[in-house]
């Protein structure tokens, strides 16, 4: 007889209620990271985009432009190679490379492992360059304060409705490569409509990491978000 309900199921199985959140382990570690950032007065920003949107170019530029004013640490996520970390280091940045192997996203445990190595000082910014992918990283909380999606004008203005989870979780979208606008058919108002359709509160800033357009606004946004020293 079945041990749960008394039926005559010959398999004699027993049902165990679990009600267990599958992401609970990652969320727990993310909360621990969040507490660490709060305690150390560090602003953590999770940067996400498709491959080739210009994350690393933007980071190189930021390290150069803000180096004297704002301490910046970078956690570089890629499936393989140290190429991106070497680029950031060459620009003068404090950087750790995280290789995910077959993994398509960073998780909270990987970032936790990078923190003692980076040791970001109080009042500084930790920029996490997630694996280039508009799908998987959306699901994994790293303990960051903000999620910023970087997309480039060559990707087309309908990206937010094609990848709603990614855009819904963002505080800000940086639309990169606006220096290419004369050469590609990208409709900025249509893009803003698409982004607000999935995320009515999202901010959008057009930038060019190579030519410098819009970077002052992005840096002002970052400065406002940095915790003031206690």
């Amino acid at each position, binding site marked *: 007889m079945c041990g749960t309900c008394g039926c005559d199921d010959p398999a004699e199985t027993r049902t165990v*209620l679990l009600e267990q959140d599958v992401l609970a*382990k990652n969320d727990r570690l993310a909360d621990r990271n969040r507490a660490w950032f709060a305690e150390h007065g560090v602003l953590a920003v999770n940067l996400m985009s498709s491959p080739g949107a210009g994350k690393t170019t933007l980071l190189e530029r930021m390290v150069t432009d803000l180096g004297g004013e704002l301490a910046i640490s970078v956690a570089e996520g890629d499936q393989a190679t140290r190429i991106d970390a070497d680029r950031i280091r060459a620009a003068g940045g404090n950087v750790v490379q995280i290789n995910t192997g077959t*993994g*398509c996203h960073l998780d909270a445990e990987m970032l936790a492992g990078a923190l003692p190595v980076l040791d970001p000082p109080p009042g500084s910014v930790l920029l996490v360059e997630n694996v280039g992918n508009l*799908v998987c990283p959306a699901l994994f909380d790293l303990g960051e304060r903000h999620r910023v999606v970087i997309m480039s004008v060559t990707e087309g203005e309908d990206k937010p409705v094609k990848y709603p989870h990614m855009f819904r979780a963002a505080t800000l979208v940086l639309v990169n490569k606006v220096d290419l606008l004369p050469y590609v058919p990208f409709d900025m108002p249509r893009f803003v409509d698409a982004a607000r*359709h999935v995320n009515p509160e999202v901010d959008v800033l057009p930038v060019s990491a190579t030519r410098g357009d819009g970077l002052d606004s992005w840096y002002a946004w970052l400065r406002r978000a940095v915790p003031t020293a206690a």
Partner: protein
Amino acid sequence: MHELAITQGVVDAVTERLGDTRVSRVVLEIGRLSGVAVESVRFCFPLVAEGTPLAGARLDIVEPPGRGRCRRCGRETELVDPLAVCPCGSADLELTSGRQLLVKRVEVA
């Protein structure tokens, strides 16, 4: 393919709670707004379960629709996918359900 990591999370969650107990059936609840492809989870499950107490277990997945409250008209509405909008036309919805990713229950032999 974050479903591979998600499915690994399912197996970990079960073995953490039940240790070496043989599991014959797993019931998951994956909300329609969770961003998880159910077919990929079905594909990954036997591969991830291999060599664990979940090997050979039957996998059942319940997919409840989402619910959201419209910030414009206040109506509570059912959402079948992440792009669904309120009947009033507004996309400004506060999601109240549909993003869950749960191991509901298991059957042990």
